[in-house]
């Protein structure tokens, strides 16, 4: 177990370093002069040159990289070229918003996927199973932003039950917070839930074919009880992996859903920062997202061992 943790930690650190280099060089190489874009069409050449100087954009890339990594490690990603505001607090604000969204969506996805997937597996080959499977297939095919637009058209525009977008922090107005969170979290969660339920289904079908389950059935347990007592834990290994992998999809989905629902999260911050060529801000956001995905992968790796004791020796 200890060896496993050590190896995984090594991989985690190496991935961090490599991705920081990639993020920095790739984004620094985007076409378009960040100083010119930050100041706009009417900026004078002198002002553009002064901004390049002020933010050290004329220095060699390696120097800029070292400075940047140093800043990130110290928890200070610097100031935005465009708004001149500190990036750290801004990013922290936006992250909270996105975490609420992604977290709620994940809960919704799991709440949908586990029962639906299990039911599809147990009813495998029967009409009700087929219907469910067809529905989940539709869910898989619909991108989150389209689900968002459809939900808004129905629940906000047609029925007027929920607001079409916006964001209120939970401390300010908890009821409004929930109302505004509902549609975007559903848009993300439904789609992810559909994808996840496919994996739950095949994992459960695999488990149902195992000898130990047949034995349990032979002892007189119903399929559901046999699954609950002996099967689900085994089925969870691949499902947790997929859930981990889905987090990156969720983050990407959040970028788009935040746009549709006008939510001031990391995704919206990233899109406007890219358009403004606010390079430091883009680099900070992308790096934070990369770290989030790496951390989740790391945690999922460790979770296997918790779920499946056999791996603890590995």
């Amino acid at each position, binding site marked *: 177990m200890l060896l496993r943790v050590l190896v995984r930690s090594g991989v985690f650190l190496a991935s961090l370093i490599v991705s920081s280099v990639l993020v920095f060089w790739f984004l620094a190489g985007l076409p378009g002069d960040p100083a010119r874009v930050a100041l*706009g069409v009417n900026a004078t050449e002198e002002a553009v040159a002064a901004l390049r100087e002020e933010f050290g954009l004329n220095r060699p890339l390696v120097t800029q990289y070292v400075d940047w990594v140093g800043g990130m490690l110290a928890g200070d990603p610097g100031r935005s070229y465009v708004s001149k505001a500190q990036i750290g607090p801004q990013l922290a604000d936006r992250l909270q918003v996105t975490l609420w969204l992604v977290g709620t969506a994940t809960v919704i996805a799991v709440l949908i996927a586990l029962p639906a997937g299990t039911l599809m597996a147990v009813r495998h080959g029967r009409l009700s199973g087929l219907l469910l499977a067809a529905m989940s297939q539709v869910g898989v095919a619909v991108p989150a932003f389209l689900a968002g637009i459809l939900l808004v058209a129905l629940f906000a525009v047609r029925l007027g039950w929920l607001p079409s977008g916006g964001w209120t922090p939970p401390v300010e107005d908890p009821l409004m917070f929930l109302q505004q969170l509902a549609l975007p979290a559903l848009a993300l969660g439904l789609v992810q839930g559909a994808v996840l339920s496919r994996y739950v289904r095949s994992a459960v079908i695999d488990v149902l074919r195992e000898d130990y389950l047949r034995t349990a059935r032979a002892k007189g347990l119903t399929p559901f009880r046999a699954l609950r007592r002996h099967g689900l834990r085994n089925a969870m290994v691949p499902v947790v992996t997929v859930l981990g992998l889905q987090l990156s999809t969720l983050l990407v989905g959040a970028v788009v859903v935040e746009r549709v629902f006008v939510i001031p999260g990391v995704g919206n911050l990233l899109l406007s920062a890219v358009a403004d060529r606010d390079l430091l801000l883009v680099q900070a956001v992308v790096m934070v997202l990369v770290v989030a995905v790496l951390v989740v992968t790391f945690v999922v790796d460790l979770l296997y061992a918790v779920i499946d004791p056999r791996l603890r020796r590995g």
Partner: protein
Amino acid sequence: MDSDLIGSTRMVAGALAAAALLGLAACSAGSSTSPPEGTPPPSGEGSDEALVLGLVAEPASLDFTTEDGAAIPQALLVNLYEGLVKLDQDGEIVPALSTEWDVSDDGRTYTFELVDNAEFTSGEPMTATDVVFSIERVQTDWTTSLAAAMDVVESVEADSPTRVVVTLSAPSNDWLYRMTTRIGAIFSEAGVDDLASTPIGTGPYQLDAWNRGDSIVLTRNDDYWGDAPHFAEVTLRYFDDPTALNSALLSGGIDVITTVQAPEALPQFDGNDDLQIIEGTTNGEVVLSFNHRSAPFQDIRVRQAIRLAIDHQSLIDTCWAGRGELIGSMVPPTDPWYEDLTALVPHDPNLAAQLLGEAEQTDLTLRLRVPTLPYAESCGQVVASQLEDVGITVALDTLEFPAQWLQQVFTDHDYDMSIVAHVEPRDVPAVFGNPEYYPGYDNAEVQDLLAEADAGTPDEQVTIMQEVARVLSEDAASDWLFLLPNLIVADADITGLPENGIGEAFDLTLLARG
């Protein structure tokens, strides 16, 4: 030169008259329907109602002295910052922080009398020294090229706490007009430390909160020196996605869409009695620009052929849902020197092909590089196909806006043709009077006429600018595809919305709920 006209002293209506006019406007606004109980008195008091506007393109900073873009003055000018003068709904220059002004016989000295009861939201009184400070600061600290309009100011002095004398190095009609734009905004000497997020002005509204990525909230300035505006709180909510903007209005999340982003979506609002649709003109000329540094465009026949090849009405029908005005030159109908010049360039593909033949350009390939903006992308395809009909091969590509377009087209001039809307008011001199600008249009006649128009009497300015517009069109300095429409959709009971987009500000003080 008509010396009588130059010699006459031009006095402008006093504050009393202006206040009376404002009062009238508010009156007629309030009484258009029978006022329900609790409706505020027509002038001076204001209500405790709130208004939510939906806009596009949130500014990254609130400092228009260093940051470019139309979004900041749209939100803050007139509402939070005031100038000595402002534009009224007819495009006339009227008093704001000045009560009247006097122009010397030689047109070089402007004497402004200031209101004596204005104060900044920081509590300091607004006096002549703030005006001097603000005007001088444009010359010393502003970094946008718009500040160049202040270069003509030779000196500015405070004669008394309520009188400012501005001396120009040469007479300039344009200067007073520019004083209605952002460069005329009056700042407090003690209030410019954090313009990016803490703007301090004298206006009827002040900044309450800026929720980045979401909205700017303005609240009524209760110590405002003039008439209180109707709404106690105005939220400017920013959307990047046109569908989200439309849904917000239809679901009651916002009260007004200040600019409809996708005119093809307008029919969904038609026939809805709860909503009103306003359709007028703007200052946004959608220019098909020619790169005059590129060899084929040095031949006027090629430029004319391109203009003749384009069927402008069919273009606007195809790519902008038929909304917007056809213009034959760089002048919108709200400018005093507007003339309908569309007849100068009829749609004549045969003549176009003939001109190309005469210019020995029958095998012409041109690069049309358009920014990733909705009108540019959709109209770019129509332009390309219409030009191909007369035998020009068009290599169409799109450049991410703003970053790539600014770099490649605007800065490096690496293009033959492009499409972009020039939304600044009265932008003929900026675009066609400056050979350094991205189209590289260098015409001595136009430059001389522009200088004459600026130095002449206001009447001469109108006549000469009409001639400039005609010369630009006849010389095919570029093509003008159409004028962006001012498209507003709002709750039916909102009054005071602007029919036409004229200046840089979205004037919140005129709005009310009837």
